[in-house]
């Protein structure tokens, strides 16, 4: 660019030389300073400046390029200028700062990433990488501390001297608070923002979109929501699978989208939020949705369900069929999806994390996958229940409601071994925990005990127990580290008295029955 915009024709041809000749009059147009400030190539320094001046004067034309005019213009713009000499000084300042601004604008794109890297290196210097096992070891130590504390608390109950007893209890409460803070602190070390998970997707989506020749706009929300590090490893694969599926089967090709009157670019939303002590991750697309008729037909064909059952199924249940093993409605097998392996693996992976997947779909408008996960794999809020002489722990998050059933609410089906609870409009299968766990119960009649309705995956199950006990927080420990997993048991925990409590796995409790 040689001259600033010429459209108005008012700019005289301005040559480098002539401009320089006027140098003396300019005064504040101190060449050396300007050239330094404005440009790397000293010769063209003033062109930048011209452009700048043009901007300052709001693109108004001025016939001659001299400072008076300029200042005049500037005067018009802001009327604080009293004397010319002062003006010059001020003008210099204004110009300089404007120049600085001006310069910084085109450079913006370059400087931003630099700043970011700088921030990153700063952060790196104040953070360290720690092996997860070390944090687990810390967690174990806290667990031991909790037990030692509760032992001491139990001991105070037996004390005779009331004064010492209350003094001691007071201090024990203090320790209890510190332990809780410590526990929360260690827990928060395990938590990392969802951004780590989301950041992997733009590339995957770009590549897949390219392969499929589709236009996809990917957006994610809830980057700062924190999730247990241990959970992320198990979560990435299922999420990737759902995303790929949504892109391959969900979002239509640009032509089809245009024909359907939709925006050519499909949208894929991913969000994370925490609610009711659970982590909720949603993957939403605005594609064609799941063809329920096709899925149902395929499921019948593959013998996954009976035709008669299909007729009674709700749309929600039908959509859930995509998680059945060996089901794919894709006409062609591609390298992206369609082999019929996958969605069942997604389901089992999520289950392994103690979570559940749900899918809602509307034909023509897209589908939403909702993954519900416990906030952490390390701590759980549980309810103590009693069956016979044994105590178990039910995850609080799984419990829907509990009731003392009347005989009329129970229907026996088939061989009289399966019982169904009729609760309002629902039919919920009853699982007698004492049968599953081979123990002698206190009550045999359902109406004597309590039925706890729990979520089992996306279904509901009514567990028959003898009694409810207290509610408590538990540190989850794996059972299979030293032994093996047991049916219906999801994990173990150390109770206040130092014994082991078993946590019921509501997801898989039905399987044997």
């Amino acid at each position, binding site marked *: 660019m040689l001259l600033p915009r010429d459209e108005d024709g008012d700019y005289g041809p301005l040559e480098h030389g002539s401009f320089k000749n006027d140098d003396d009059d300019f005064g504040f147009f101190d060449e050396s300073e300007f050239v330094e400030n404005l440009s790397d190539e000293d010769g063209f320094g003033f062109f930048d400046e011209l452009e700048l001046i043009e901007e300052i004067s709001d693109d108004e034309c001025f016939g001659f390029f001299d400072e008076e005019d300029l200042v005049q213009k500037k005067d018009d713009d802001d009327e604080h200028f009293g004397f010319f000499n002062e003006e010059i000084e001020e003008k210099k300042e204004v110009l300089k700062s404007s120049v600085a601004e001006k310069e910084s604008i085109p450079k913006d794109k370059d400087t931003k990433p630099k700043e970011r890297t700088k921030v990153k290196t700063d952060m790196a210097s104040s953070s360290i990488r720690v092996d997860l096992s070390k944090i687990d070891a810390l967690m174990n130590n806290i667990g031991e501390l909790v037990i030692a504390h509760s032992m001491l608390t139990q001991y105070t109950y037996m004390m005779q001297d009331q004064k010492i007893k209350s003094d001691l209890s007071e201090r024990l409460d203090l320790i209890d608070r510190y332990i809780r803070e410590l526990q929360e602190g260690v827990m928060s070390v395990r938590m990392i923002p969802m951004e780590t998970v989301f950041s992997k997707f733009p590339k995957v989506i770009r590549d897949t979109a390219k392969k499929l020749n589709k236009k996809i706009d990917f957006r994610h929300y809830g980057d700062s929501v924190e999730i247990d590090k241990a959970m992320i490893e198990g979560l990435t694969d299922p999420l990737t699978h759902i995303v790929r599926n949504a892109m391959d089967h969900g979002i239509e090709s640009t032509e089809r989208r245009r024909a359907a009157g939709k925006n050519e670019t499909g949208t894929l939303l991913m969000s994370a939020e925490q609610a009711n002590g659970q982590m909720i991750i949603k993957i939403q697309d605005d594609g064609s949705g799941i063809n329920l008729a096709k899925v149902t037909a395929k499921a019948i064909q593959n013998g996954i369900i009976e035709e008669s059952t299909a007729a009674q199924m709700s749309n929600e249940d039908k959509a859930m069929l995509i998680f059945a093993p060996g089901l794919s409605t894709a006409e062609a097998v591609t390298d992206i999806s369609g082999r019929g392996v996958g969605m069942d693996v997604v389901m089992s992976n999520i289950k392994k994390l103690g979570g559940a997947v749900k899918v809602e779909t509307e034909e023509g408008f897209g589908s939403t996958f909702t993954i519900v996960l416990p906030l952490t794999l390390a701590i759980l809020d549980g309810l103590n229940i009693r069956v016979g002489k044994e105590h178990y722990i039910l995850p609080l998050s799984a419990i829907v409601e509990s009731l003392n059933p009347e005989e009329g609410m129970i229907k026996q089906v088939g061989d009289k071994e399966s019982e169904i609870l009729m609760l309002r409009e629902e039919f919920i299968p009853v699982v007698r925990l004492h049968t599953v766990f081979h123990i002698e119960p206190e009550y045999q009649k359902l109406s004597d005990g309590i039925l706890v309705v729990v979520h089992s995956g996306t279904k509901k199950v009514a567990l028959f127990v003898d009694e409810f006990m207290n509610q408590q927080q538990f540190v989850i*420990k794996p059972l299979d580290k*030293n032994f093996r997993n047991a049916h219906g048991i999801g994990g173990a925990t150390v109770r206040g008295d130092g014994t082991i409590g078993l946590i019921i796995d509501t997801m898989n409790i039905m399987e044997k029955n």
Partner: protein
Amino acid sequence: MAIIESNQLLTFKLGSETYGIQINKVREILTYPIVTPIPDASRWVKGVINLRGEVAPIIDLRVRFSINSEPIYNERTIVIAVKTEDARMIGLVVDEVSDMENVDIDKLYPAPDMGTSIAPKYLKGLFKKEDKMVVILDIDKVLDKEEMQKLSQVSLETSSHVLAASA
């Protein structure tokens, strides 16, 4: 990888016989704690306990090797906590802990094919102490992960078969 095997043994009694395990496998000796039973486990798996913050199973060797099928558990029952090669913590119920012995692990008598209540594949060998034989257990074989998983399930099936047959 050459592992220098410990030549110190911890000897204990199962019924009237004396057995030994290498001391480097032993982590702790404790009295029989409150054990939480595992619902679908076989009879020789008594349940799980909290062992240094870990959930460790308790296995009664007397029941496992049919030395005593109806043992009594009280505050004098002894549990030896061992750590296997693959770092699993397991508690073993024994009748009594006897002594420490120094033996040259290379100079053991090979385990006989018969005459012991424990199958030879679980044994490292024998050694003689004042005219008495001490059988050295190969704890990693006894507590082999796959075998334990298989056995605890098989025995559960057979016990339910027996129940079904008798009913």
